[in-house]
C-alpha cells in the first residue's frame, strides 16, 4: 500500500501511543491526550461509558458492555458485573460479603481466587472478566490513535491493597496491555481537576463509585500534586444503594436476601439501579419487583440508603485528622464517581465537610481524563516541568513477629516509591531457617490485618540464638506494589526467598490464561483487524488528499471526480465495522489513483535527475524505474 505515500510522510510520532483507563466497578472509560488536551473516547453509538459487564456465551463467545447488560436476564450466572469487587479476593471473602448476589460462584473453589461459574464447564476469575473489559477499551483507543497501544495507565481505588493491585495488573496482562502505571483514582481526578483550574491549596477528593469509596486529601502546590493522606472502604459504593433498595422491596415480598435466587436478584438489582438513577432528577419513581409495582419517593430512597451512606463518616474523620484540619478549612471538596450524582450523597458531603462540593467536571469522566494526562506524561509526549504526582501507600505494610503482633515496616501515607529494612534475630540455637508472614493493615494484631504473602528464608548458617540477623526489605514501587527480599547479615550469606501470595494468581496461572485466551481470541482478532484497516484507510486518505492539492496540475480531466468518488466510498466503509469492506475500498481507491501516482513518481524522478531534491518516496513504483528508499 506504499504507492500513495509519495509526498505524504507518516504522521509525526512523538513518544508512544498511550491511553488512560478508568477500570470502574460499574462503568469503565478510556481517555487519550490529543492536541495537548485530554478527552474520553466514545463507542460507535457515541457513548463514552462502557458498562463493566461481561456476558459469557455457551460456545465461548463473549459480549462486553451494553450488549452484555442487555443479555443479563438471558442466562443466569453467565453475565458478570462488578467483577472489580472480587479482584484480589478469596472465594470465602466474596461469598460472605454479599448477601444478595446475582453471581454463581464455582463450587469447591476455596482457593485464593474467586471463580464464577458462567456456563456448564466454564469458570472465570474476576481478572479474566476485567481483561475482557480492558480489551474493548484498548481496541477503542487503538482506533483513535491509529495503531497498536504502547502502554496504558490504569486507575485503581487508592484504598486497594497489594493483592487487589496485583490482580489489576494481571487483568491488564491478560488483555495484552502494557501497564505504564497503576494510578490512584482520586489522584487521577485531582490531576484532571487541578490542571483545569490551576489552583493551589488543600483539596479533598470524595470518590464514590459503583463499588468503592475513596477519600483523599491532596496538597496542590505549583503543579506538584501531593497526596497527604488517603482512606476509604474498598467495598462501599453505589451498588450497595441498589442492594439496599432491592432488599427492601424483596423483603416486602417475604424474600430474604441470603436465600434469594440469582435470577430474582439480578432483576431486582437492575430495577433498583434504574430507580436510583431516575431519582437524581425526579422526586418520585416507580419500580417493578417480581411483577409487583411499587412507588419510591426520593425521601424514602434517602432513608433506605442512609445507613450505607453513614459508612463514609469514619474514613472522612480519619483523613481530616491525619492532616489536622477541619472540613471547612479545605480549599475545596471535589466529587468523583457516578454515585456522587445521588442528591443525598451531595448533601451529606456538604454537611460532613461544612462546604458545598465542587462538581464542575463530569464525575464519571474525570478519573479517565486524569489517567490520560498521566499516560501522556509517562509514555506519550513526555514529562512536563509543571506537573508531578506524589502518591502514598494507603495501608501500612509489616511483618508478623512473635505472639502474632505486627511489626510495621512501611507506614501508611508514606510517599511511594519507598523502601525500608528491618532486622530480625534468630531465636533458637542452630536455627537455619526463618518463616516470615507479610501483612497489610493498621491494626496491631496479625489476625486483624490482611495476609499478603508468606515466605521462608533458609540457608542461615547455624549460630547461637540471637546471633543470626536477618534483614527483611520491603519495597513498594510507584504502582503501590510490594516486593520483598531478605538476607542474613552477619555472615553475608544470601538466602533464597520464595514468596507465595496469599491471594490472587501466581505467574504460571496467568501465563496459562494468556495461552487459553488465544484459543478464544477470534473476537479480539476481529477488532484488531478492524482497527488496523481503519488506520490504513486513514493513512491512504490523508496521503491522497495531500497529493491532490500539491499536484493538482498533474490531474487529468475527470480524474478529480473519480478520485473523489473513491474517497467517499472509503470514508463510508471506514465508518462501518466490516474490515473486508474497508480493505476492498482501499484496493479500489488504490487502483483509481494508480496513474496519478505514476505521474507524480515520474515527475519526482525527473526532478532528481535534474539535481533537485527528491520528494519523500516510500516505495518503488510500477514500470522499470527503481527508486531507492530514502
Amino acid at each position, binding site marked *: 500500500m506504499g504507492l500513495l505515500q509519495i509526498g505524504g510522510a507518516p504522521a509525526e510520532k512523538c513518544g508512544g501511543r498511550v491511553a488512560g483507563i478508568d477500570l470502574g466497578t460499574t462503568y469503565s472509560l478510556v481517555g487519550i491526550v490529543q492536541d495537548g488536551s485530554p478527552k474520553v473516547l466514545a463507542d460507535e453509538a457515541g457513548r463514552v461509558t462502557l458498562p463493566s459487564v461481561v456476558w459469557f456465551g455457551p460456545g465461548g463467545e463473549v459480549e462486553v458492555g451494553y450488549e452484555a447488560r442487555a443479555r443479563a436476564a438471558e442466562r443466569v450466572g453467565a453475565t458478570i458485573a462488578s467483577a472489580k469487587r472480587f479482584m484480589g479476593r478469596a472465594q470465602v471473602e466474596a461469598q460472605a460479603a454479599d448477601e444478595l448476589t446475582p453471581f454463581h460462584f464455582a463450587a469447591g473453589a476455596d482457593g485464593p481466587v474467586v471463580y464464577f461459574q458462567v456456563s456448564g464447564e466454564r469458570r472465570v476469575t474476576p481478572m479474566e472478566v476485567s481483561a475482557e473489559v480492558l480489551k474493548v477499551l484498548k481496541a477503542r483507543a487503538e482506533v483513535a490513535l491509529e495503531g497498536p497501544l504502547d502502554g496504558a495507565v490504569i486507575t485503581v481505588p487508592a484504598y486497594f491493597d497489594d493483592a487487589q493491585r496485583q490482580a489489576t495488573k494481571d487483568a491488564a496482562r491478560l488483555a495484552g496491555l502494557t501497564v505504564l502505571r497503576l494510578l490512584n483514582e482520586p489522584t487521577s481526578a485531582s490531576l484532571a481537576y487541578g490542571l483545569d483550574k490551576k489552583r493551589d491549596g488543600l483539596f479533598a477528593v470524595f470518590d464514590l463509585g459503583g463499588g468503592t469509596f475513596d477519600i483523599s486529601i491532596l496538597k496542590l502546590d505549583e503543579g*506538584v500534586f501531593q497526596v497527604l493522606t488517603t482512606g476509604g472502604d474498598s467495598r462501599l459504593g453505589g451498588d450497595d444503594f441498589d442492594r439496599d433498595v432491592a432488599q427492601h422491596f424483596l423483603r416486602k415480598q417475604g424474600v430474604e436476601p441470603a436465600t434469594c435466587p440469582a435470577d430474582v436478584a439480578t432483576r431486582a438489582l437492575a430495577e433498583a439501579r434504574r430507580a436510583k438513577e431516575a431519582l437524581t432528577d425526579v422526586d418520585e419513581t416507580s419500580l417493578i419487583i417480581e411483577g409487583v409495582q411499587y412507588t419510591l419517593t426520593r425521601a424514602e430512597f434517602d432513608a433506605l440508603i442512609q445507613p450505607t451512606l453513614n459508612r463514609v463518616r469514619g474514613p472522612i474523620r480519619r483523613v481530616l485528622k491525619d492532616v489536622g484540619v477541619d472540613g471547612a478549612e479545605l480549599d475545596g471538596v471535589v466529587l468523583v464517581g457516578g454515585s456522587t450524582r445521588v442528591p443525598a450523597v451531595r448533601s451529606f458531603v456538604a454537611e460532613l465537610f461544612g462546604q458545598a462540593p465542587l462538581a464542575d467536571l463530569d464525575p464519571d469522566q474525570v478519573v479517565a481524563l486524569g489517567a490520560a494526562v498521566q499516560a501522556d506524561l509517562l509514555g506519550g509526549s513526555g*514529562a512536563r516541568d509543571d506537573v508531578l504526582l506524589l502518591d502514598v501507600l494507603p495501608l501500612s505494610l509489616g511483618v508478623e513477629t512473635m505472639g502474632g503482633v505486627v511489626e510495621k515496616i512501611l507506614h501508611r501515607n508514606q510517599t*511511594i*516509591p519507598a523502601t525500608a529494612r528491618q532486622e530480625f534475630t534468630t531465636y533458637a540455637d542452630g536455627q537455619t531457617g526463618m518463616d516470615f508472614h507479610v501483612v497489610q493493615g493498621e491494626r496491631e494484631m496479625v489476625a486483624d490485618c490482611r495476609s499478603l504473602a508468606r515466605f521462608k528464608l533458609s540457608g542461615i548458617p547455624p549460630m547461637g540464638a540471637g546471633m543470626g540477623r536477618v534483614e527483611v526489605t520491603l519495597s513498594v514501587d510507584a504502582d503501590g506494589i510490594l516486593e520483598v527480599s531478605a538476607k542474613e547479615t552477619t555472615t553475608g550469606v544470601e538466602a533464597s526467598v520464595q514468596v507465595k501470595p496469599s491471594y490472587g494468581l501466581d505467574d504460571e496461572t496467568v501465563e496459562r490464561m494468556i495461552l487459553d485466551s488465544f484459543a478464544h481470541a477470534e473476537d479480539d482478532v476481529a477488532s484488531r483487524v478492524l482497527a488496523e484497516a481503519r488506520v490504513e484507510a486513514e493513512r491512504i486518505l490523508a496521503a491522497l488528499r495531500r497529493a491532490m492539492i500539491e499536484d493538482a496540475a498533474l490531474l487529468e480531466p475527470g480524474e478529480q471526480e473519480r478520485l473523489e468518488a473513491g474517497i467517499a466510498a472509503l470514508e463510508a466503509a471506514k465508518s462501518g465495522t466490516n474490515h473486508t469492506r474497508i480493505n476492498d475500498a482501499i484496493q479500489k481507491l488504490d487502483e483509481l489513483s494508480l496513474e496519478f501516482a505514476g505521474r507524480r513518481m515520474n515527475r519526482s524522478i525527473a526532478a532528481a535527475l535534474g539535481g533537485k531534491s527528491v520528494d519523500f518516496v516510500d516505495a518503488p513504483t510500477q514500470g522499470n524505474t527503481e527508486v531507492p528508499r530514502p
Partner: protein
Amino acid sequence: MADCWSCGAERGVDFFCPTCGKIQAASPKTTLFEALGLPARMRLERGDVDKAFREASRNVHPDRFAQAAPMERKLALQLTELVNQAHQTLRDPRRRAEYLLKAEGVEVGHDQARTRDRAFLMEMLELQERVDETSEVAGLEQMLKDAKARTKHLLAGLEAYLDDGVGEQAVAARAVEELRYMERLAERIDAKLEEMY
C-alpha cells in the same frame, strides 16, 4: 570525589552532574537533611520540610525520567526512595530527633538502649491503664490534651539540647523514648474515641 557515570567529569555532591546535567547516585554519606537540602537541626517548620520535599521530588522523581535511559531511571528511583525516606523521617519531630541523636551515636529504640528506670516505666503503664479504664469522652479528651502538652515540653527540651547544646545526651535520649510512649498513648486514646463517636 566520584566522577559522573555519564561524562566522567568530577560531579561534586549534587544529585546532578554540573558538567553534563545527568542524574547521579547518592553518596552513602548523604544525610537525610542533605537529601532535602535542609539545615541539619531540630528546629524546622513542617511547612518548610514539606516544601523542600516537593522541590526535591520535582527534580528526581522517576516520572520525570519515564522515557530516559535505564541507568537514569534506576538512579531516579534510588534518589526518590532516599528523598521519600528523608521526608518521612524529618517531617516528624520525634523521628527527626532520633535521627539527629543517631548521628551522635545514640541508638534510641534498640532493645539494649531501652531505659530500665522502673519508676518511669510504671508511670507509663499507669497512664495506659487509665486510658483503658476511662470510658467517658471528656476524660479521654483531657488525657489527650495532657499527652500533647507533655509532648510539646519534651520537644522543647530536645530542641535546646540538639540545636543549642543545652542539657545532657542521656536526658535527650530519655525524652525521645518518652515521646514514643506519648505517641502510643495518643493513638490509643484516639482509637478509643473513634469507637465512641
